[in-house]
């Protein structure tokens, strides 16, 4: 991966408020990169810093090897799709898309606009008035308008948050295809962990102006570095555990589950001391139904809550020695009943699915 954007020791203050804290980041050429985090974590500020709408208080922002200090937004090789799309309502679709070409007489306007519009699936919309477009169409116009300049980087600020669920899922797929088609770097800001997991090559999870973890989707989901990341990405059950270092990992005594050994790799960060927490994703746990057998570990429980989703059923199951019921996701297959609240059951669990955290980390 050839690096395109480099951020070194970037800090941003608004008065006393520390919006970005020591951000070090390298984003590659042609990468689909996401900045993920809860609102107020600094992800949009970071994006606007790359775009040139915010200046850094401290640190280096470089694009394509060039220091961007003092380079205003209009001279940077980046283009942005705004959260509100910022379609110019007094111009037609074609005039919106061609807006960036005002400073580029070398490019033939008509061909470029036609090309850009057909790329986003809006061929033939040239003459439409911008204010008469639907949300999804506005977004496509915003994409075409940004991509017509062939930037090195396309910045997307929560581009899907204004769309309904179905449209959002469709646009996720289209954006992935579009990114592969144009082959440039996309940087996406989102608070939706599913969106980030689905679309990105790599994801930076941000909390309070810091990058909590930077990894690909699978690592982030299966080996979150700490409880904060684990809680933000998907669902996870947490159980307290006593930790003893062993030859090739850790020996644990997990509340409610008992003694078990895990590999060193199952602790994304080394655990010091004996206070640990283990995490288990709901889909790594199973219920053992009548007539089924398993060679894996079992623990007795009682159904506390049932939520039926059609393809899945989500159970809350109480086990002895743990205050909070375990969240378990079961695929609904033929022959498996949906259990009632209060029914006794047995929980199947796999030690290999455990993730171990330091309780104080």
């Amino acid at each position, binding site marked *: 991966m050839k690096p395109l954007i480099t951020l070194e020791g970037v800090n941003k203050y608004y008065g006393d408020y520390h919006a970005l804290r020591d951000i070090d980041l390298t984003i590659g050429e042609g990468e689909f990169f996401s900045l993920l985090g809860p609102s107020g974590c600094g992800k949009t500020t970071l994006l606007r810093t790359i775009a040139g709408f915010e200046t850094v208080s401290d640190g280096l922002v470089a694009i394509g090897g060039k220091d961007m200090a003092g380079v*205003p*937004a209009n001279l940077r090789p980046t283009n*942005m799709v705004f959260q509100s799309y910022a379609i*110019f*309502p007094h111009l037609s679709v074609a005039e919106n898309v061609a*807006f*960036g070409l005002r*400073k580029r007489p070398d490019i033939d306007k008509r061909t470029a606009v036609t090309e850009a519009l057909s790329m986003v699936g809006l061929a033939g919309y040239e003459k439409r008035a911008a204010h008469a477009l639907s949300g999804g169409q506005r977004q496509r116009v915003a994409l075409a308008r940004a991509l017509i*300049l062939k930037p090195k980087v396309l910045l997307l600020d929560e581009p899907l948050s204004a769309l309904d669920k179905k449209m959002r899922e469709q646009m996720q797929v289209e954006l992935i295809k579009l990114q592969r088609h144009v082959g440039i770097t996309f940087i996406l800001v989102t608070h939706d962990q599913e969106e980030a997991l689905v679309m990105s090559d790599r994801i930076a999870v941000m909390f309070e102006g810091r990058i909590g973890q930077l990894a690909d989707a699978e690592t982030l989901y299966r080996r979150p570095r700490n409880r904060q990341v684990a809680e933000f990405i998907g669902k996870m059950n947490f159980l307290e555990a006593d930790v003893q270092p062993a030859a090739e990992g850790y020996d644990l005594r997990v509340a409610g589950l008992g003694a078990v050994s895990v590999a060193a790799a199952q602790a994304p960060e080394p655990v010091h001391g004996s206070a640990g927490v283990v995490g288990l994703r709901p889909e790594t746990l199973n219920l053992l139904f009548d007539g089924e057998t398993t060679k894996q570990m079992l623990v007795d429980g009682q159904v506390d809550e049932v939520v039926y989703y059609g393809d899945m059923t989500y159970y809350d199951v109480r086990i002895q020695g743990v205050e909070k019921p375990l969240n378990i996701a079961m695929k609904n297959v033929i022959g498996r009943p949906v259990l009632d609240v209060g029914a006794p059951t047995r929980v199947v669990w796999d030690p290999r699915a455990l993730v171990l955290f330091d309780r104080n980390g």
Partner: protein
Amino acid sequence: MSLRVYTIIYLIFLYAPIALLPIFAFNDATIIAFPLSGGTTKWFAEMWTTKALHTAVQNSLFIAVMTSLLSTLLGICAARAGAMYRFPMKAGIMGFIMLPLVLPEIIVAVSLLIVVVQILDLGLSNWTIIAAHVLICTPFSIAILNGAFQNLDPSMEEAAMDLGESRFSAFRLVTLPLVMPGIIASMLIAFTISLDEFIIAFFLSGSSPTMPVYIWGLLRFPQSLPVVMALGTILVALSIILLSIAEILRRRGMARAGVTDKGGFL
């Protein structure tokens, strides 16, 4: 039922005196009284040949045009800052800017007279009236332009800059066309307010009066009252036309920006 009666009485109270203007402007008698004694256009003709009136109208037009330009320019700056930036004491500052809207004009007039003549030691001229009219018109301009700027997505200018334009040309190419109806509406309203403003003009005009002050002077001569009626007729018609244009433009601007109407004067 009683509400309907009340509404009708209210409307008569409001508009009957104005309706009298054109009636007596076309009435062929020097005395303003019923019964009417036949139609004429001679009062309009007389108006046409009165040199002093022409000077007064010229003064008023010059003052009104300058006032509308200056107060709108100040209004644009204030409304843009108010809509797009956060700064300390913003609410307080905006409140103080809007205050002349409710200050009694006579107070403004007297204090300005003292400032101009006693403290600054300047002579009275059209420019002193312009300064005072800008003071009272700017709040109106801000009120109108606030609506236009607050309906504007702040990302618009950034989007234009992102697409290669400088800050100024982003403003010129994107913000200005979108707030243009508000700007025109503001200029028309400031123009109308300035054109028929009396108290301040009365205190601050120099040797050459504005039109309202000139009309007031005519009232001492009963035989010239019909001419005042004729002039008044023209002024009322002009005011209604200008304010209607202002409102139509404001609404069109709202529709063009694709937003729901909130605010405005009419």
